């Protein structure tokens, strides 16, 4: 058998283990395979974040609405591995006069398709699912942005924040440290990300081990397949979302227990309506905007779950 980057234990392997042995066995199994993929994901995320020419990108983002949507889609995955940069950027894009549409697109695209979660989805589940996840996220983020920019309440927010585009000439002169320092900085950032995320990730893995051990396969097979499965997965996936990559491991566990691939996609896409971010955003935009984009994100995850499931025959 080829060397696997993902855990290899099957749900049946957990039978006969004592309660306290389950998470230990699972963690040992996970880390004997998963460490290299985690290491890779964090390192790449750190390097990309450091070397994206942030000043150039930001200048474009500040320059008004023309290419707003495209930029929001392309940039979001690379800049927002750290969740604390996302809401300020959302506010920045909005205040800079790029319009509510690109701001929302950016906000939804960022958690749905950041490099860390895409790399991990690809390595742990499959690159096909990772690819579909990106495409579906683009479609949903774009739709939500465009729809909200047409609603009366979206327009109201936009008017409120409309101002002349910032003229940043002369006020931004980024100094570039030498290459070796930048490499060190990118590794440091990778370590920082790991420190932020791994503790929750570990707790999540413990939870996943119990799910795999105790959740009967017929329950998953009954409830997490077909149309019901997609609806259920999209609803559970949302509130459960924490920016910790656990949803990927848990998704894999459920897939192993018999969840359909369509439901898996809905499950993975259920992130944009995560509550902590919604709260932060509602302080800048109004609740109506937040509810609208949550609704669109949810509908999108159901729609793409169904579409993907139907196309590959795994509903």
């Amino acid at each position, binding site marked *: 058998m080829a060397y696997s980057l993902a855990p290899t234990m099957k749900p049946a392997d957990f039978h006969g283990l004592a309660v306290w042995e389950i998470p230990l066995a699972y963690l040992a199994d996970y880390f004997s395979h998963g460490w290299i993929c985690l290491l890779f994901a964090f390192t790449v995320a750190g390097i990309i974040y450091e070397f994206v020419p942030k000043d150039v990108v930001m200048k474009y983002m500040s320059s008004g609405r023309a290419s707003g949507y495209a930029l929001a889609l392309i940039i979001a995955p690379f800049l927002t591995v750290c969740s*604390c940069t996302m809401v300020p950027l959302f506010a920045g894009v909005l205040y*800079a006069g790029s319009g509510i549409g690109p701001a929302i697109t950016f906000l939804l695209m960022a958690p749905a398709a950041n490099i860390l979660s895409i790399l991990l989805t690809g390595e742990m589940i499959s690159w096909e699912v990772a690819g579909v996840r990106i495409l579906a996220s683009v479609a949903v983020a774009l739709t939500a942005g465009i729809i909200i920019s047409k609603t009366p309440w979206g327009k109201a927010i936009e008017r409120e924040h409309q*101002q002349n585009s910032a003229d940043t000439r002369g006020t931004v*002169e980024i100094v570039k440290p030498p290459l070796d320092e930048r490499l060190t900085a990118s590794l440091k950032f990778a370590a*920082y990300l790991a420190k932020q995320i791994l503790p929750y990730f570990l707790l999540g893995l413990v939870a996943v081990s119990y799910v795999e051990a105790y959740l009967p396969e017929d329950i998953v097979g009954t409830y997490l397949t077909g149309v019901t499965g997609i609806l259920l997965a999209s609803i559970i996936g949302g509130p459960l979302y924490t920016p910790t990559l656990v949803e990927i491991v848990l998704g894999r566990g459920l897939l192993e227990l018999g969840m359909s691939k369509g439901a898996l996609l809905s499950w993975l896409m259920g992130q944009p309506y995560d509550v902590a971010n919604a709260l932060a955003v509602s302080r800048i935009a109004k609740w109506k905007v937040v509810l609208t984009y949550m609704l669109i994100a949810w509908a999108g995850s159901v729609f793409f779950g169904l579409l993907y499931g139907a196309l590959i025959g795994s509903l």
Partner: protein
Amino acid sequence: MNEVKVEVIGPDPPCARCQAARKVAEKVAEKLKASGINVTVAKANAMSKDVVSKYGVLVSPAVAINGVVKIMGRIPGEAEIEKLVKDAVEKRV
């Protein structure tokens, strides 16, 4: 006395990395006081309209020296800030 204004720009409430950047700036301010440079460290809110209209959209933490953004999206080192502050002083003299 040379006056230099260092602004640490980040979201409000501040994120961990912005606080780290601010600490670096404050340490440098303390250190440079002895050599006759008066550094004021201020925190600017990346989510306020004033900041956005002045600097554009920023990746936090960002550091501006005398109204010019020099660092974006990373925590600077002490030596780096010190050099930037000294450069700012020389430019004016």
